[in-house]
């Protein structure tokens, strides 16, 4: 392996270690420091002969961890705790007992605002649930067969008074909506659970 390729590999390895070490820094700062260090290495490499000198130069540059530490000094405390009791309760309760779940959801710091909105709006009790719920109930009532029995001359006959069956598409919509109505809380809960793990 030619020495130039080897040198490039060593430098690339250093820079990728530095990039990983800087993962906790804001992106702009990370990019800035990486660019500066890259330029430094280029400048310094001009006068170097051989791998040993390159390695010495990188030693003087310092361990990536050390450089990253300097980059992260004075930062506020890192991301809030991931999954405490509050978050677990919120996760369990939101699909089951919506008001309590939502209150816990919003007071927890485990999710950002977007996720909290998703948890709030999806069924069972969320606004979308209301939108779904009323038409569903209306449809149910509208298409329920009424019925009863009458007694005429001692003969009891039952009758049923069914409205004409709903058109196919309404039926389909009804079933689809019902399915969604039950499915979405579960999906919402799963989604929030995943987002919690991501942080």
């Amino acid at each position, binding site marked *: 392996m030619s020495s130039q390729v080897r040198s490039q590999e060593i430098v690339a390895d250093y820079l990728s270690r530095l990039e990983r070490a800087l993962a906790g820094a804001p992106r702009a700062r990370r990019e*800035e420091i990486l660019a*500066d260090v890259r330029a430094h290495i280029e400048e310094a490499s001009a006068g170097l002969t051989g791998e040993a000198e390159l390695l010495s130069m990188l030693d003087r*540059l310092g361990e990536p961890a050390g450089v990253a530490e300097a980059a992260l000094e004075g930062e506020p405390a890192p991301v809030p705790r991931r999954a405490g009791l509050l978050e677990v309760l919120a996760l369990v309760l939101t699909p089951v007992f919506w008001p309590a779940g939502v209150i816990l959801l919003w007071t927890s710091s485990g999710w950002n605002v977007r996720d909290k909105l998703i948890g709030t709006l999806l069924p069972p009790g969320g606004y979308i649930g209301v939108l779904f719920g009323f038409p569903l109930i209306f449809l149910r009532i509208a298409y329920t067969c009424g019925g009863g029995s009458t007694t005429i001359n001692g003969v009891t006959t039952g009758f049923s008074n069914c409205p004409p069956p709903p058109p196919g598409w309404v039926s389909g919509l009804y079933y689809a909506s019902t399915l969604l109505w039950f499915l979405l809380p579960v999906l919402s809960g799963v989604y929030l659970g995943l987002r919690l793990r991501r942080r």
Partner: protein
Amino acid sequence: MEVTVTQMRKGLLEYCVMALLAEQPRYGYELVQELGRSDGLLISDGTIYPLLSRLRRDGAVETSWRESSQGPPRKYYALTEPGRRRLAAFSAEWRSFSAAVSEILGRGAVR
């Protein structure tokens, strides 16, 4: 003792950088070489870049690009007006502070 030296270095390095920039604008590698001449100021070359980044965010230095005959353009750092004021304030503090410390240390009990 180790901790104190490290802390001193950390606190003072930025003012040394600013003082070097007060003389003239410099690019990163140039600053590293200047600081390297004085023993013990810069332990790891790489740490100067986060420092410069912070100084720029604080408004103490500003950057500009200049063509270089030796290769790609270089990023030059220059001291800003607020940076100059901050350096001057530190300078005054440092003079009296270090004089006091030196005087006490020099009272004969310390060889």
